[in-house]
């Protein structure tokens, strides 16, 4: 699974970050990306309204609450350890510990859009409590649960990088397009490890 594009969408549906990782892939114009971001924002909202009850992830399952933190059993493979040695695992800034995300992790996006698969691509979406959306597009169509959780894990790490290198950059203005070299660099390292 190769990551083709990573997008960050702010709370109001504006595209604040877009980066291609495969030079060969067909490019969209920046305008098209903006439209894509807006569309995704809308689709998530619509999906949350029309998702059948049976498909919704129950609150218990979807959002691991504090009471269940202790008995984390399911383990998400550490992204850094796939394909490369643990020693060269990407440095996540102030987020220490090589196993930071070994614990099971489930998003609390229980009704909205999480994952779209087409013939050629898969799209994964991770939404934070503040309304930020992290989107990854991969070059494979996959419905494999493992792949989904790896993608989610990757996006959460992207979120960590965002928290460190974007939000802690004193010259970054919230809600504005992200132009932070460090974030670019770190995200590149993270994706390169897949």
């Amino acid at each position, binding site marked *: 699974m190769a990551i083709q594009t990573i997008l960050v969408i702010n709370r109001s549906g504006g595209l604040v970050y877009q980066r291609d990782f495969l030079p060969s892939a067909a490019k969209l114009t920046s305008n098209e990306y903006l439209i894509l971001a807006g569309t995704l924002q809308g689709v*998530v909202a619509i*999906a949350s309204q029309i998702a059948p009850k049976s498909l919704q992830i129950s609150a218990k399952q979807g959002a691991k609450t504090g*009471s269940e933190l202790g008995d984390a059993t399911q383990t998400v493979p550490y992204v850094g350890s796939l394909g490369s040695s643990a020693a060269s695992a990407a440095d996540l800034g102030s987020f220490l*510990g090589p196993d*930071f995300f070994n614990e099971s992790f489930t998003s609390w996006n229980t009704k909205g*859009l999480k994952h779209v698969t087409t013939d050629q691509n898969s799209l994964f979406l991770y939404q934070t409590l*503040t309304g930020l959306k992290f989107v990854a597009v991969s070059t494979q169509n996959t419905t494999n649960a493992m792949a989904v959780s790896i993608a989610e894990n990757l996006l*959460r790490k992207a979120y960590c990088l965002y928290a460190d290198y974007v939000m802690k950059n004193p010259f970054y203005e*919230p809600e504005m397009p992200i132009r932070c070299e460090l974030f670019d660099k770190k995200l590149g390292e993270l994706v390169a490890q897949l």
Partner: protein
Amino acid sequence: MSSSTNNTPVPSTSSKKSLKVFSDDIWKNKTAKINAELFTLTYGSIVSQLCTDYERDFAKVNNQLYSMGYNIGVRLIEDFLARTALPRCDSLARTSEVITICAFKVFLNVTPQVGNWSSNKDSFSLFLEENPLSEFVELPMDAAKELWYSNILCGVLKGALEMVQMDCDVWFVNDVLKGDQTTELRIKLNRVLKDEIPAGED
């Protein structure tokens, strides 16, 4: 929110405990740390510089600290959520636990006590037994009345809670620096900004 059909879950002691274990682990093993004195002195020099810059108009200093805190809070919340991946709190009681047991622990390595709940459960107080910001501080005579030395904390909480769609008022009630018995910080929930809660959550 769908959880409103259930009785508001009373936070059990066991969930409190595991939140504590969880937070301790994050603090111990997964967080980069700096020297406490460097931190305390940095904050101290900011406050005393503000006092000079505003010509000892302490009301202005309080406001400035608050707005600095607010700007920190709206950024820091992302760090907190990325770090902990905690779900949305289902009650204000839960919020108070997450703030004290988790957030204060992870960022300042202290755990304030929660108390003084209002009768309709929309506001509570945090009692800071120790305050890393004011470790060496003695307020000068003229500042003792007006200056809320740690007012930045109020701003941080305000900003952070607002980003998770809770409109709150946060202010200091007491401060040991002023000769009070306790350091008490009050949080009052005005309303939950339901319209802004991201789609797809319960």
